[in-house]
């Protein structure tokens, strides 16, 4: 019994890592955006755009790679819209982010009309000879598809970019004090625009992971609030990439737990179990936000503030 229990652990961990992947993409992208001082609440909309475009490209080309690329592009285009409005036209970031989500939900349903319920092949797994056959660790870590590894690799990559490169230093400086960065000659708006595009592309990838690998299919509103959970994850991570990974796995774990509980025919209704990830988000958010000192030390000081170079 004990040995069997342990053996289940492998697939459970694997499922957790898979469930965490869309969140990881979206949250890492948003983290970079917020580090540059911009709050883009449109993650949910960009994820949906990525999910639907990725799916359509995949169906029409048969290529997963092109599907993901198309999704990243779609997310970036949506983000560009946000960038033009908030950076060039100085629109309120909160309102514009909400608009992006509302627009993205509608647009994705419209574009994806003919694709609801269409089957597509799975993304192939990358098997590492030897390692993939190990008990527990094998299925948990070495039986995933490429986008999962890419997402995991993004964690150190984003961390390295932000804290080890000059471009990352400039990006952090812009988010910390945009007036000073401007006075030193850095192009605040240009840097922010690039960050916003990156965030959009990552959200698009996250969405595409849902429609191409996780589900895999297209359904209206299929992100089911994951974009918002990703936003909460960035706060939970106190703007640190490694902690985003931790948070994403935590949520992956909650999601899987809830699915397994449903599968095991627990006496609790499935709707009540489905509330768990959302309630967990609230709990986690509260736990972090109550430490005001910590938030102040880590949150980019210019987050959400409008910058006009001649003002």
């Amino acid at each position: 019994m004990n040995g069997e229990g342990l053996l289940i652990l492998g697939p459970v961990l694997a499922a957790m890592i898979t469930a965490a992947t869309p969140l990881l993409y979206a949250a890492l992208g948003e983290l970079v955006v917020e580090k540059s001082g911009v709050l883009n609440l449109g993650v949910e909309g960009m994820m949906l755009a990525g999910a639907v475009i990725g799916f359509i490209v995949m169906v029409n080309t048969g290529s997963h790679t092109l599907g993901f690329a198309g999704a990243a592009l779609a997310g970036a285009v949506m983000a560009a819209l946000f960038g033009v409005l908030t950076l060039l036209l100085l629109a309120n970031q909160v309102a514009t982010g909400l608009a992006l989500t509302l627009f993205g939900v509608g647009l994705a349903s419209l574009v994806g009309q003919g694709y609801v319920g269409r089957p597509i092949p799975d993304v192939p797994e990358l098997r590492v000879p030897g390692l993939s056959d190990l008990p527990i660790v094998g299925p948990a870590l070495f039986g995933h598809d490429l986008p999962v590894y890419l997402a995991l690799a993004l964690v150190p990559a984003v961390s390295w970019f932000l804290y080890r490169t000059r471009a990352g230093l400039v990006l952090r400086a812009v988010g910390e004090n945009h007036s000073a960065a401007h006075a030193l000659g850095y192009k605040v708006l240009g840097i922010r625009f690039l960050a916003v595009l990156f965030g959009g592309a990552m959200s698009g990838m996250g969405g595409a992971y849902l429609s191409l690998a996780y589900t895999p299919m297209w359904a209206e509103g299929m992100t089911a609030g994951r974009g918002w959970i990703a936003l909460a994850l960035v706060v939970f991570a106190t703007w640190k990439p490694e902690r985003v990974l931790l948070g994403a796995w935590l949520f992956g774990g909650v999601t899987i737990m809830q699915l397994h509980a449903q599968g095991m025919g627990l006496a609790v209704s499935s709707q009540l179990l489905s509330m768990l990830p959302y309630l967990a988000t609230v709990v986690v958010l509260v736990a972090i936000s109550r430490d005001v000192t910590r938030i102040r030390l880590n949150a980019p000081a210019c987050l959400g503030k409008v910058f006009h170079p001649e003002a």
Partner: protein
Amino acid sequence: MTAPPPRLALRGITKRFPGTLANDSVDLTLLPGEVHALVGENGAGKSTLVKIIYGVLHADAGTIEWDGREVTIPSPHAARRLGIGMVFQHFSLFDTLTVAENIALGLEAPGPMKDLAARIRAVSERYGLALDPGRHVFDLSVGERQRVEIVRCLLQDPRLLIMDEPTSVLTPQEVTRLFETLKRLAAEGCTILYISHKLEEIRAICDRATVLRGGKVVATCNPRQETARSLAEMMIGAELTTPDRAGAPVAGAPRLEVRHLATTSDNPFATNLVDVSLEVRAGEILGIAGVAGNGQAELMAALSGEVLVADEAAIRIDGRPVGHLGPRARRELGFAFVPEERLGRGAVPELSLSENALLSGYAREPLVRGGLVHFGRARSYAERIIGAFNVVSRGHRAEARSLSGGNLQKFIIGREILQKPKLLVVGQPTWGVDAGAAAAIHQALIDLARGGAAVLVVSQDLDELFVLSDRIAVLFHGRLSESRPTHHTTVEEIGLLMGGLFGTAADDEEVGRVA
């Protein structure tokens, strides 16, 4: 043999902003190795001119010559490549980054971080500007922050160093040290453009001075052959008025008493107050000096009631403990308050002057009845303030942000004074305000005190405190020194206190007797 070409020559520089001509055909010549002062009132166009030199702004017309060659300076990067460095008045620093990272951001080719740290140590040793490259900026004092800015410039061997109001945040002793550094740089051939409105300093360090007024150059002179008064009159273009302090202070009953006030904060950037005690009596003005960031903001917040104090008896108004009362309740007891930030605390930028009159006027004027706002009365209150304090504006409908700094400050101070307060607390009454408005504000504060109110002025400007105050105390690292009668102390003595030469046990015991 011909003289070397000027390091920098500006000809006919003109810059227009919507509604104003900030620079009107300005000529300026800076020679190698000279310390050149750029003086003028707030709004005279000094900042605009140096931003053009540093490539932050671009002139609408005019030419710039560098070492005899005509150049364009499209960006600060280009300026730094030419050898121009700038120390900003509001430091261009990033609080949560380290000293080394801050410096790297201001360099064109910072190289690897490890080498940079070594170079920072070398330069700071050479010029006696002690700095630890690994510390975070939010941990540094204001003087240390300025050192970061200076070291950042020195690391690229500048041939022109622009210093924008460098001493406004320093103690007199730190100023002396800064001057030694500047003289040494000048001796090494670096040109220094020194922007200030502190005329005694300019006479102490500058070889030449260019005076700006209303965007135009009105004079170029040798400041050592001028008096501070003649320089000031060149700046203002009118005779200098000194406030009328007739009528000796009548030591009335204590209106404000602060006893052993201590604060804590969840803001990691705050300076906590430690055992602060003071007393202001009816009819007198108490000045509180100190370098910014030594607890002024926390003291103001505790006095105004924006932050409540655990020990309610630590603050008393007319003998009543008020530490637990919010701003409204304190106002009802006769308290009035002018915060340091005008736009964004003392006034709401987007609201009209009548709405801004309501902002604090509601507590002591009959502007609200039964939960409803009496907008007619708010309007006439605003009009009364505008009339009584000569506020230049487009009437009570004008948005607060459309007023000049001086006029907005007159409006805010007027709004508080017309409520006939028994106690007024003012932060930085004339910071960034033109001379005319500053004189009017000083006179209004003196008149208020002579009328029997108690006035507490918190300011970083020592000249102002010496003009206004009957007594002066100094805030340092959250502690307040005992106060000294103004005519029994000197700028040097206050300067030493600003540098922290107090806080002994003896000092604390004396507070009760002296205040």
